[in-house]
């Protein structure tokens, strides 16, 4: 039942809504109303669908990464408490993680709904056609997997920081999920990355699956140029993302059970 308290606490973080939703909606406004103007008016419908889905997939992943960063950072404030709780209460590392995973899914789906509705409204308005998501259930499933992966990945980075590197390096570690999201996102958008890398990377897998869910189209190797460079198998993308999420959660559980109590003062830079 911890997840209900975590969720309540997360939903009250104004910065999360600011950076994770409002700032991302600002990007969508740019994608639809500014960059969207550069698209020729007489393209086939699937081109607009593909353009919209690419924006949606990238932006929603960034939303989830800002959520994951907020959640995992909160672990840094609880190192003494966790160390005590695993020894002297019935809390177990995996149950703590699963409660956080559940609240991260709930909050992730809530925030993503705002992103999806904004995408639908802005891009439909810009291109004057109905650009509704093709498969809501598939998107929901992908968001669940992506939320788990992003949470597990950010948590791993934070646990490495707590147990080995020291909290002073916190500001560097916090941006890694976002940086990787940007790197892989724009790589998949404009470059012809090796297929193996696209399958192996959980970031590109998540983007590909969100693209597929929104557009209902095959996932191109290079999002910006359509299927000319070939397409990706959705099943492999699902297996990749799910495997990453599961493996990282297991690793998190191992490091969490050995969490080192740290004074939060260590985070001070000056």
């Amino acid at each position: 039942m911890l997840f209900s308290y975590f969720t309540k606490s997360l939903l009250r973080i104004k910065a999360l809504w600011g950076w994770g939703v409002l700032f991302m909606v600002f990007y969508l406004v740019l994608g639809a109303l500014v960059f969207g103007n550069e698209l020729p008016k007489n393209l086939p419908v699937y081109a607009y669908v593909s353009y919209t889905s690419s924006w949606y997939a990238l932006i929603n992943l960034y939303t989830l990464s800002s959520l994951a960063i907020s959640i995992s950072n909160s672990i840094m404030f609880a190192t003494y408490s966790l160390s005590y709780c695993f020894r002297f209460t019935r809390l177990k590392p995996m149950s703590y993680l699963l409660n956080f995973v559940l609240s991260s899914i709930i909050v992730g789906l809530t925030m993503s709904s705002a992103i999806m509705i904004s995408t639908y409204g802005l891009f439909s308005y810009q291109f004057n056609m109905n650009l509704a998501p093709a498969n809501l259930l598939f998107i929901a499933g992908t968001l669940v997997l992506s939320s788990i992966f992003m949470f597990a990945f950010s948590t791993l980075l934070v646990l490495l920081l707590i147990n080995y590197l020291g909290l002073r390096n916190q500001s560097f570690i916090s941006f890694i999920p976002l940086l990787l999201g940007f790197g892989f996102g724009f790589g998949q958008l404009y470059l012809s990355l090796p297929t193996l890398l696209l399958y192996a990377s959980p970031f590109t897998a998540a983007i590909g699956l969100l693209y597929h869910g929104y557009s209902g189209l095959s996932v191109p190797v290079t999002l910006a140029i359509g299927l000319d460079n070939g397409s990706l198998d959705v099943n492999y993308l699902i297996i990749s993302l799910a495997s990453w999420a599961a493996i990282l959660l297991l690793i998190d559980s191992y490091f969490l059970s050995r969490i080192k109590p740290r004074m939060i003062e260590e985070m001070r830079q000056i």
Partner: protein
Amino acid sequence: MQHIFMLEIKDLIVSYGRRSILKNIRLELEYGEKVAIIGPNGSGKSTLIKAVLGIAPISGGYVKIFNFDVKNLKNELRVSANLPELYRLFNANIKDLFKVFSMLKEVDEAAYFNLCNYFDLDDILDKRMHELSAGQVKMFANIMALAPNPKLLLLDEPFENVDQTKRIKLIRILQNFKESIILVTHELEILRKFPEWNLYFVLEGQLYGPFKVSDMDDLYLSKGIKENALMTIQTSIGIFSITKEIGEVALKYATNFNQVIEEVA
């Protein structure tokens, strides 16, 4: 058959970096035994509580609770402590923290709320920890430690910043508490309320004792090695002797241990 202590600390060394905070600590606690540990600020009292909880870096020796090494202990519900940082599991108000920890400790949540009411602290329920005064934080942590009615209760300066009426109420609870307690403090005055308890001194990370709290008013601290010394204490500012009935600084006139050390040094 080997005797099993509730708590067994043997040759314990706790170090932060190169600096040893606790040195070769030995302490054995029987079931139901109550111990007060007194020492000046910075002597390692709180670190000792943290070491017992397994949250201080133990670099030598061991701490065993119910015969299990604290380093490997998991889900042991019979121990609780009053360090506020133990309860910062997430950013919630006090009411929610009571509910969550009652669940995690498998205790009826009424135990937390009743204690809160007994201490006249109902106004803190909707506040978060960072919104509380120092005294309120201490009382919140005391409630978190007391509510599960643990077999081993660890209290770090439980009276610090606490007002007089709450002190009296807390003293009454501790006087009637049936299980084992380790209480660390620098306040000598308050200890006189627990004459039956065993007493240890901690100075520069070393533990000296046991004595009885009831004998405290007959004890003196003197500089150097005295012939009639019950025990000698080696510190970086010299050697001191604990003597009975005669000596340089009588503990009975002191209110806190910092003052004793200043006077005798």
